[in-house]
């Protein structure tokens, strides 16, 4: 049967067909749907782990336990999981283990643009890179075979355009590989120096064998057209190149991007007059080709930054530019915004009003940095709000402690905020941390987490109490506030900032987009009473605008949170 599948759903289908039995991941755009789709198969045990390091260790444990396993993450998630990654390379696997990592060239939904191929080289692991959904499925299955054949975890590199494009996939039946019986094997799995030294030799030997395999692998494919121009490429970049150049060029399409196939590259280079590497982000393939002494062009034609496209290929290699139509005037931009009724809004409004320095974190609430709230000073990586605030306050002293906060979501706190909080407590910090508990992992599209009380399948699960975690790490001042209650939030914020010891404020209200959240009737503006003072506009609510000099509330968007009513000094906003 043929069907249209997202690249991520095709990876999940590949897991199913390959007989994968365990998946552990942390959500992150553009990788999230791999695990969500895998969870729809009853045959696969799936879970959301608190972070990517945990997820990778769970997957490795499942592999050692004898069942094919996977963990999926976005590119920055692999930084978190880098610790197990490098040593899993030494232990190898029992049943096959695949690590799916989705890069985000163009930073559609990320804080940086790192190229995960460097991790394959650094950890000495093979990496496959599919270019469409059919390959997502096929390469996932191949990755399990290679994992078992070469005794290694295998990286599957995706990118936004592959993960989030639907294309046609032919479905097949599931194979059921027999579980591998567990056998204690200390030299293989206990990586203390005596054993690890021996394993490093094995790893180098494996890399040599994998390089030999790369030279014979059918997924490193020569596609010959006009041989005056030869293109070496992989993943989405291959699609752009083929689209732009068609049969007017020849291609070496690399399905395996680490290790790279030396002989195949030499052979291809020998057949074409001019050789160009087209790759997004860094010059990984180009550097390798140059090291072989083969003349090649790459980054002098294509950018280090952002995505490539078919027009860019046509322009850089053929000098062809499209004919376009556009309006002359500059159009207002439309950045993403916090939704109407978002519980984070009231909190950011209060922080902005109090002119507090805000060390932020990763999630929907990063949007608090945008105008008009503009209530964020830093956003680095998962968990950096809390630990960063501790360092910030330690060097700046009491005055800073009384006017700075960390802001972190419930899921991000579980991911890597807890350790930062323990550090504040242990090292005698006096910082104020606000945990935004909206009962869900929001930005990635509503995934459950250890604080929500439900697992990935929506079944009841242990619900970790944020209050108790904070108390357990030594925070004595823990308060819970409803961010819709602006007066109370303001009072608690002032009190906790003034306190002479560390405190946590839990800003608790479920995400307004959650299905079970009942919305109040929409508010409206009594325009006779509206003095156009724009006090309500300070909230940055997408449901409120000024039309013909008066505030207007869009009833289709308003969820009746009532924040604007509380700010109107003229009683112009009514239910």
């Amino acid at each position, binding site marked *: 049967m043929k069907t249209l599948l997202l690249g991520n759903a095709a990876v999940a289908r590949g897991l199913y067909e390959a007989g994968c039995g365990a998946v552990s991941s942390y959500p992150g755009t553009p990788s999230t749907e791999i695990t969500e789709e895998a969870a729809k198969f009853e045959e696969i045990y799936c879970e959301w782990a608190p972070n990517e390091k945990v997820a990778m260790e769970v997957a490795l444990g499942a592999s050692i336990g004898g069942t094919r396993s996977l963990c999926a993450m976005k590119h920055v998630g692999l930084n978190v999981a880098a610790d197990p990654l490098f040593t899993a390379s030494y232990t190898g696997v029992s049943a096959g283990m695949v690590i799916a990592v989705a890069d985000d060239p163009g930073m559609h939904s990320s804080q940086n643009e790192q190229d995960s191929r460097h991790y394959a080289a650094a950890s000495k692991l093979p990496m496959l890179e599919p270019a469409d959904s059919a390959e997502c499925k096929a390469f996932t299955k191949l990755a399990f075979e290679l994992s078992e054949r070469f005794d290694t975890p295998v990286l599957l590199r995706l990118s936004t355009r592959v993960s989030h494009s639907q294309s046609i996939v032919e479905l097949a039946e599931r194979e059921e590989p027999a579980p591998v019986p567990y056998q204690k094997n200390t030299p293989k799995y206990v990586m203390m120096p005596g054993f690890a030294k021996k394993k490093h030799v094995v790893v180098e030997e494996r890399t040599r064998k994998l390089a030999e395999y790369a030279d014979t692998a059918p997924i490193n494919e020569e596609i010959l057209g006009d041989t005056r121009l030869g293109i070496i490429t992989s993943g989405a970049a291959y699609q752009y190149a083929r689209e732009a150049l068609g049969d007017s060029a020849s291609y070496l399409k690399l399905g395996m991007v680490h290790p790279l196939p030396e002989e195949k590259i030499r052979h291809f280079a020998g057949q074409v007059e001019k050789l160009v590497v087209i790759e997004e982000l860094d010059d990984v393939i180009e550097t390798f080709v140059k090291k072989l002494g083969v003349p090649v062009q790459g980054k002098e034609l294509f950018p280090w930054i952002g995505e490539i496209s078919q027009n860019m290929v046509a322009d850089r290699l053929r000098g062809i530019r499209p004919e376009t139509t556009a309006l002359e005037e500059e159009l207002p931009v439309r950045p993403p915004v916090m939704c109407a009724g978002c519980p984070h809004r009231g909190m950011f409004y209060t922080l902005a009003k109090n002119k507090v320095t805000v060390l932020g974190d990763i999630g929907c609430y990063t949007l608090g940095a*945008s105008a008009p709230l503009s209530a964020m000073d830093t956003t680095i990586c998962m968990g950096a709000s809390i630990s960063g605030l501790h360092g910030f306050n330690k060097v700046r002293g009491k005055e800073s402690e009384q006017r700075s906060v960390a802001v972190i979501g419930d899921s991000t706190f579980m991911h890597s905020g807890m350790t930062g909080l323990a550090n504040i407590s242990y090292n005698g910090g006096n910082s104020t941390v606000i945990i935004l508990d909206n009962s869900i992992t929001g930005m990635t599209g509503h995934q459950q987490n250890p604080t929500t009380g439900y697992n990935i399948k929506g079944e009841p699960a242990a619900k970790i109490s944020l209050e108790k975690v904070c108390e357990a790490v030594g925070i004595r001042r823990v308060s819970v506030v409803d961010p819709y209650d602006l007066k109370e939030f303001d009072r608690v914020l002032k009190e906790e900032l003034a306190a002479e010891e560390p405190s946590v404020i839990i800003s608790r209200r479920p995400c307004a987009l959650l299905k079970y959240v009942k919305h109040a009737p929409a508010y409206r503006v009594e325009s006779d009473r509206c003095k156009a003072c724009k006090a309500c506009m300070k909230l940055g609510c*997408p449901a409120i605008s000024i039309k013909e000099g008066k505030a207007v509330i869009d009833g289709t968007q308003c969820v009746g949170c009532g924040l604007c009513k509380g700010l109107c000094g003229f009683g112009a906003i009514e239910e």
Partner: protein
Amino acid sequence: MNTTKNMMIVGVGGQGTLLASRVLGNALLQQGYDVKVSEVHGMSQRGGSVVTYVRYGEKVYSPIVDEGQADIILAFEQLEAARWLHDLKPGGKLIVNTQQIDPMPVVTGTASYPAGLMEKIRAKGVDLTALDALSLAEQAGSSKAVNIVLIGVLSCYLDFPKEVWARALEECVPPKFLEINQKAFELGRSCKGE
């Protein structure tokens, strides 16, 4: 020669462009084409400018539609139509829902919503169909059905049998909302716009 057809669905995060692209993709698959549908998830979805690329033909390579390549752009909102206009192929078709949704710079007063966008676009010689899809959606029973009203309009420009669209709706729309969406599709299909 490359015979791949290019379509774009553009709008504001939350307007239901993803469902529209799924219905379209389903119809194209039924017609036996190679199809690619490229979506945007994550950060941009939160009320930001969103675009979905739909490409079909004998063999489709790139998942995206690039500048000057779209045969048809289906715009869910006026400003978004203007924003993505440079992707329209010369002679391409632009279908616009005349709804206006203020972006945050307009809401906060640092920019104003451009006036007379449809007239300006038409003055460029663009083959434009503009309609009030929101009213038609409300007429069908839900303001949320704007996406399917617009798919109904789009269906007039794609020569597929009616049954294909009917099946695509049945397979993509939750049963609870099917009737409203069928009505929305019909209203869109029978609307000629201005």
